[in-house]
């Protein structure tokens, strides 16, 4: 592997790691928001 191959590998791996973490975080946020919304809807219905 040439010099630029190593550079590309390093920057590529770092980009994948950061984007994966960002996407994972967004997915966890979406899941938690949906769970909370469902719980609050259900609680509201029970109160009425």
């Amino acid at each position: 592997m040439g010099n630029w191959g190593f550079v590309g590998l390093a920057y590529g791996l770092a980009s994948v790691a950061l984007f994966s973490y960002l996407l994972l975080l967004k997915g966890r946020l979406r899941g938690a928001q949906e769970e909370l919304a469902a719980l609050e809807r259900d609680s509201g219905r029970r109160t009425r």
Partner: protein
Amino acid sequence: MEERTVVASAQWASEHGRVGAGASLAAKVLGAAAALVLAAGLYLGLVVVPPDAVQGDVQRIMYLHVPSIVTAYVAFFVVFCTSVLYLWKRDLRFDAVAVASAEIGVVLTGITLATGSIWGKSTWGVWWTWDARLTLTAILFTIYVGYLMLRSFAEDPRAGARYGAVLAILGFLDIPLNHFAVYWWRTLHQPSSIIRPGGPSVASTMLVPLGINFAGLVLLSIYLLLERVRLERIRHRTIEVRLKRGRRG
């Protein structure tokens, strides 16, 4: 979970409007600013700055490797401070910031280890060596992965927060040890070329992309921190709603 924890969660989770709402404007601006600054830093480091006289183009990995570990140190310093504050005040807001910052620090330390290994293969001829600096960085990574595992396995969130805070404070001691390892032991890793007595030893043309990428990673970390803390608030609010529902039967 005990009543005290529920009350603390409720107070925090219910503050400042709806917790289920999307990212704040501040977070969106920070995310956009981080993307722009990182793009500028990458352009400078990969295109504008000339190759290193000795190492050639492979030295460009340093424009990512060095800012990653410095930003990880900042993230772990935040974990250290908020863990001390949590043990002192027992306020779950500090714990939420600690766990969020630890996650970001782990991602950045992982990037540091991976990029350092790639640079090592091209320069030293090996992917890994049990050098003091490399080993202490791997230990740092393991300590905070352990911290996150401890947090996720704890059945009582208050106990998880307390044990996690103690581990985070003790684990932070690895950072000064890691910084001085290159002076105290004979290592393959070169001594610090930026944070050193007498100022940086690298050319100013190289300092610019290093500084810009560091600023970009700090902005990105703050953006990720805000989003990760928002996740903790939603989780606390969910626990609160569940418990209220349970009490009503």
